[in-house]
């Protein structure tokens, strides 16, 4: 099992969700986050006040998948989240040792 963590542009979220749905991935955890990588923030002045946007709004998706699905999911995210500009985000993959369904304490890939 692998966990995919994808940090994407908020505006691409709907497309990413649809792309994942198309390959049969429905379950995901979504968090509104702020951060920046190479895409630094910028400063906006409104009515004499300076607003510095150094942490940019992003969406974080977390999905745990069986190994066989991971490549397809990554591909779907890459295709749907990419605009080609700085700030498109990142995908992180990590191995998951166990998954347990709380309701019936079932374990393994079957609970995903």
């Amino acid at each position, binding site marked *: 099992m692998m966990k995919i963590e994808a940090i994407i542009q*908020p505006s691409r979220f709907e497309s990413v969700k649809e792309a994942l749905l198309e390959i049969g991935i429905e379950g995901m955890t979504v968090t509104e986050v702020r951060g920046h990588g190479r895409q630094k923030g910028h400063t906006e002045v409104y009515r004499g006040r300076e607003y510095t946007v150094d942490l940019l709004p992003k969406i974080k998706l977390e999905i745990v998948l069986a190994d066989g699905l991971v490549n397809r999911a990554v591909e779907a995210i890459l295709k749907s989240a990419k605009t080609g500009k700085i700030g498109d985000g990142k995908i992180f993959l990590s191995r998951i040792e166990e998954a347990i369904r709380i309701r019936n304490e079932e374990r393994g890939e079957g609970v995903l």
Partner: protein
Amino acid sequence: MASPRLGLEAGYRPKKKMTDPVSSLSVLGPQCDAQRERIRKLFDNGASAQDTLRQLCELADGAIQQVFAELLRSRQAPAQGFCLLALGGYGREMLFPYSDLDLLFLFGNEKSEEEFRPLIAEFSRTLWDLGFRVSSAGRTLDECRRIEEDNAEFHLAMLDRRFLDGDATLFEKLDAKVMSGPEKQARPFLLNELQRLMCDRLNRYGNTIFHLEPNVKEAPGGLRDYHSTLWMRQLAGDRRDPRISPVNEDELTRNAVEFLSAIRCFLHYSNARNDNTLTYELQAGAAERSLGIDDNLRRNAAEWMRLYFRHARTLNRQLLRYMEQRPQATMTLRQRLVNATLGARQEGTNGKPFMVRDGLLELTNEQAYADRNATYALLTEASRTGVPVSREAERSIAYIMTHPELPQRNSRIAWPVLSEILGADYPGMALRPMHRLGLLIELLPEFRTIDSLVVRDFYHRYTVDEHSLRTIEHLQELAEPPDSRGLHFTQLWRTVDRRDLLILSLLLHDVGKGMPVGNHIVGSLQALEIAADRLRLEPEEKAEVHFLIEHHLDMSATVQRRDIFDPATVSAFATNVVTHERLQRLCLLTYADIHAVNPEALTPWKAEMLWRLFVSTSNYFSRTLDRDRLHASDESILLEQVRQQALGASKADIERFLDGFPRRYLAVHSPAEIAAHFALYRKLGAEPVQTDVKVTHHAYTLTLLSADRPALFATIAGVLAAWGMNIVKADAFANAAGVVLDTFNFVDLHRTLELNPGEIVRFRQSIADIVNGKQALEPLLKGRLAAALARPPKVAVPTTLNFDDASSDQCTLMEIVTQDRPGLLYGIGSALSRLGCNIEVALIDTEGQKAIDVFYLTGQGKKLAPQKQELLREVLNATLS
């Protein structure tokens, strides 16, 4: 409020089985099960909740008495100095199928406690095995005398005590001698605690009955409201109001309690546990079996829920009235000062049939309210000051409204009156009572479609009408935002123009959800058509509300689905919104609409995104003003509208007048206003300076047309300052032919024009004379500015000055934010003129003590050179410091 804490954990599960002495009770278990099944069947077959609760109570009473007797017999101990009481819901004989049995073991003294306490665990175990969940406590008589300050719930449960078994003389002693003193003593404490517990509970549920999946016990309007009202009445010595009730309140209450009790029984039976949440599925189930209704009419879940809300409203209204009538036991210094201030406002309402008492608006002459104008005056006062209308006042008005022997006068409200309520600082303070009294639906029958309407989705927590009213309350709380999400939007709320139209849009934006249309926005717009005709809105007012309703989801969608840091997104959004004023209204509407979905819907992240889009779009407007100029020949509809109003004018003349104005000119002026401007333009040949002064919302508007000339803007600003006028907003535009059209919105600080209407002629003449050079400005200004500058500002605003060469192709933009003061614009305009800068376009705005001015400047027809910008910065900093 949580279940009364009685000492043992609710639902206590015994570890040991029953011992021999009570094994004879083994037949009682199946008997109890059979009885429960019988009661359930009766309920399923239509028995009333009252009967069901009574039978469940009798079943429990019988089982308890039998177990108690067996236990005593097995111990061969007579129950002397020991008895058993039912408390809480069980005490008042409202035992629901899966509710706990709240029991108190009462001991005469410590000796009898020592003797009988070992029985308690065994007794509880036996009852558990019989299928009863016991929550019990033990107290001696002496202990009952003590006020347990950390356990108000116990004292409240004791108010419903009922003798079950054992030493009856002990119970009589408790009732007659022991409790009478402490209960009297504890009243203030209990009333305080009860008030605190109720406030906590109501707050936990957002202070509204209108939840989509309500908890029928704990949520506002639930059975706990009824019990709390009973406790309050009991603690207050049951002071019944001797006046005639507006309707038969006791009967309404009985019906509401029966209806909610039936639901609670149904929920317990359906969930097979003490779960009181009326979920969507169970709403459908309850509607299917017409639960709580005996009129044989079939209702769908939404219609059945409307009945639920009607009953919940009865119980909640009663509780809130009792809570309001009970004064705070102790007030903090701040509360006392606030009350004193509010009390002092009585003077302000002299001559009107209401006054402020204890921070609430109360009626002083009830008969006056047969005239609906008095009711609206009261509601206007609430919306203006934020002082709530008392529940008692509301009750009196309801009585007058529903009694035909008191015929209502002036029952039709005019739009200006409603507009004043909607445009005030606290419109929700009036709209809430208006909704409860039925006045809102009387004024806006379109609102009826969403009254108590449940629309199921994953996000909304409240009924549609509640959501709509909450949007308005979220805006009014921006005066003092309760958390960081609202901070950015406070200034927008304070300065938004035509707040009345924004609030009307919020009232109507979702009414389509109650109409048989595919898209609710289409329905809401249909409703607006009817409402606007009835209220006689001006075409521009209707168009604005139409835009806000039609596009009420646009800003939210842009924030969530578009890259708001992409200039193309901002430009497309701005093109749709058109003006800064409208952007401000749409932004506030979006903020409120998201906020009112549920308490968590507006995350700080979303609020920040919304604010970013607002800032980017607002800056886009102020920085692209000269980019898009009018080509009059493309505006055939407008040309025709103006031509119809300007008799005898040729199309070519109108085109010549309009050509070259920035597009904003069209966006901020109606065709009628443009026609009026054109009429002034046509007179320029006879008189080179044309002016017009109009009274607008709490201010004046001066329009001036003239051929462009040096220092024109500074001169007009100077004349206004010389007359003591405070400029709050201004636009300066020029067309392709070099005709300048300046609009100044100003406040008449010394009420010169208001008190002396004849002075308007002299005022206009003074402007014309000074602009034409027939009269000098400086002598007029001298005394006025010296006096004004002598007054220190209330809030210090630091000056910032920015130049921008990138936003416009032809001009340098200069944005100044500084302390507002009389003569400010004159000072800036004069400095610009001295340095040879020409104002191509100007946008002047104020926020309280802050002036925000944007000038599009040229020098000899070009952008300002960097050296010129530096010089200007130096001069202006010196002028403004």
